[in-house]
Structure formats: C-alpha cells, structure tokens
C-alpha cells in the first residue's frame, strides 16, 4: 500500500503544479491582454473618427469561397466567407480522414486567422498535419477571393 500513497502524492503534486502554472499564467496574460487591447483602442479610435469605417483595409472580394488541401489522412475541405472585404467566417465542410482530437486541436487556428485576417498563422504543435491541411485549404480559398 505504501507505493500507492507515494504515487498518489506524486500525482497530486503534478496536477497541483500544472494547475498553479495555469492559474498564474492566465492571470498574468489577462492583465497583459487588457494592456494590449487598450493600446490598440487608442491607436484605432482616431482613425474611426476620421472615416467612420473599420481600420483594416478591404483585401478580398465578398462571397463564399471553398478550398481543399491534404490533411493527415485525407483531404480537408472548408468554406471561407468574405463580408465587407474581410474574412468573416471559416466553416469546415469535411475532414473524413482526420483523427478527432488532433483535428479539434488544429481547428484552434481558425479564431487566430479571423483575428489577424491572414492565413499565415503558426501551426498547432502536435497537430502539424491537420494544421497544415487547414492552412493550405484556407490559402486556396483566399486565393480565389483574390487580393485587391
């Protein structure tokens, strides 16, 4: 029974360390983000008052564009929706050959793409194949949308 308790203490310690790390970093990051957003706001506000439109220039033609690329175990196809020249939405249509957990990890790229308005974001470490598939499919779709 002794080794059982040693292991329990070890496991509790590991989980505790991970949890503390998570908490500390998320507090730190949220402060950081507030500062970053504030800076962004100050930068953008004068522009908004000038032309009444959003700051990013229109880069793409409006419409819905599809793209397809090789993922881990087959093709990944998706649809990119452009509204007002901006990437408004990205919908995965099919990803039959992908492994569930890996693909959902790779899907985390999509919010970043929407935020940065560019498919050039870092791939998700550990899910490189699926990430590359999503990225290449987005690039293909955006290629059709054409940069103005």
């Amino acid at each position, binding site marked *: *029974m002794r080794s059982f308790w040693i292991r329990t203490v070890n496991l509790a310690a590991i989980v505790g360390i991970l949890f503390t790390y*998570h908490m500390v970093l998320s507090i730190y990051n949220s402060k950081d983000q507030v500062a970053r957003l504030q800076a962004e706001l100050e930068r953008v506000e004068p522009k908004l008052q000038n032309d009444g439109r959003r700051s990013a220039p229109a880069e793409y033609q409006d419409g819905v564009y599809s793209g397809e690329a090789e993922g881990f175990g087959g093709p990944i196809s998706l649809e990119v929706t452009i509204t007002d020249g901006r990437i408004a939405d990205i919908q995965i249509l099919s990803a039959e*050959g992908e*492994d569930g*957990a890996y693909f*959902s990890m790779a899907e985390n790229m999509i919010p970043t793409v929407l935020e940065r308005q560019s498919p050039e974001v870092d791939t998700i*470490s*550990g899910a490189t194949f699926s990430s590359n598939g999503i990225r290449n499919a987005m690039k293909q779709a955006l290629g059709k949308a054409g940069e103005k």
Partner: protein
Amino acid sequence: MKKMRDFTIKERKKFQAWIRALIQLACFIFFPSAFTTAFAGIKYLLTQIGAGEEIAWTPFVAVLAALCLFTILFGRFFCGFACAFGSLGDALHGLYLYLLANSKIIRRRSRKKPRKLPKSREKWLGAVPYIILAAIVLLCFSGIWDRISGLSPWEAFSMLRAGNFKLKGHLAGLCLLGILLAGMCMKERFFCRFLCPMGAAFSLLPVLPLSSLGRDRERCIPGCSACSRSCPAGIELPESGKKENAYGCFQCQKCVNVCPKGNIYCGIPQIRGNEVLATLVKTAVLAGIFLWLDI
C-alpha cells in the same frame, strides 16, 4: 449461472483469447489514435510550459486525463486491450507463434517456442521506458521535440495507418518502427514492457486495488508457475491478501484463465471465476470515454 471455471483450461483460454482479440480489433479499427493522442497530451503540456505559454484544457489534455483516470480505477487495461500499437504487436507475435508451430522454413533448431530473456536482463530493461519518457519530456520542455519528430516511430505508424505515405521526413521513424515491430514479433509485448513511454506514465499512477490480481498461494500446486509463464508482462503475482499492485500488469487476464486451480482473482472477490465480466465492463467504460471525447 455457469461459471468460467466450469470449463476446461483449454476452453477458457480459447474463449478469453477470442474476446480479447475481438476487443483489440474493434479498438484498432475505431480508436486507432488513442495512444498517440494521450501521449500528445503529455508533450503538449511540457512544450507549452517549456515555452512559457499558457496551458489550456485542449482535446489532447482531455484524452490524457481521461485515460489516466481510467487507469487509476481499472489498471492498465487500455494497454492490454485498446492500444492500437500493442494490438498490432500482439497480432504480429501471434503470427510468429503460428509460423513457429506450422512452418518448416522459420522453425530452425527444432525450436517451437520463442526464446526467453534472462530474468536479470528483463529487470533492468524494465527501467528503459522511464528513461525514454524522461528524455521525451525534456526534449519537449526544451522545445527541440517539434524539430525531431521525424524520429518518432509512432508518428510513422500513425501515418501509415491513416494511409498517408508522404514519409520523406520520417525515414528514421520508419526504420525505428520496423525494428520495434520485429521486436514485438519475436517477444510478446516487447515494446510495451521495455520501451513504451506512455506505459511508463501509466505505471507511475496510483492504481486502485479493484482490478489488481492476486493469488491464493497456499492453494497453488507446488512448482506450477503456469500464471507466471503465461504473463506477457513477466509478473510474479503477489499473494492476494497483500493488496499490493503489480504496476506492470496490462490486465490481459491470461493468468486467471490458465490457473488450473482457479486461484487467481481480482480486487472484487465476488466476481471470482467470472473475471471476463469485469473485462466487458471495462471495455464499455473505455468505449464510452472514447466516444464522448470523439477520438
């Protein structure tokens, strides 16, 4: 109700082997990436911490946590029944045994059984998985792992399994995979016992005594050791009263069925003689976890 021990040893062994093979095949077909996903959880956590990035409840971490919890409750059942890599090894080893028994080309020097490693060597080889786990953890922490992942035999295996044959950057992994499969072919569960880093992580967990097997030593036939000889993990079963777990046990239940006296039972003595029920319950729980997490 007829109990398992009312059958002959031969019938029991056959029944057990079929049940296990069926579960393994089903898991190989439906959840083949479970083992790499759980390990990706470990790698994800260490990579993020090493880079000073935030850690989140990602699908990898969820699978890792679920499998660890399952292992704490039921022992390394995942290793014995659901791991695609272990199952592939079992299939290859089965093929090897079949060829040894039936083919004249492979059978040399009238050897009908695979060679055994000396006990002393098995003991220090058993420490290798922990070394590999520690090495991979350090490589992830220092951020090197992502650049050398072409070395991973698991990645090569996963790619082949998914029908992805763009193996250019994965030649080293492919060679390692070949060596590992050859090893698994010659010695049952060679990889799982002496190399697997995920297994090392599982065997560091505290396992509740529900599933841990023990034996009534005083009822044993002197000098029998059928259980020890049938064990793919090379475990000498402890006395059942002691409640000390054998952390290397994959829960394959071979010993239970091979014992001529029915002396071996798990932490729930009420189901003694019908341990196969426990196997089915564990399979159902594990399948539920996999479906829920959409592996």
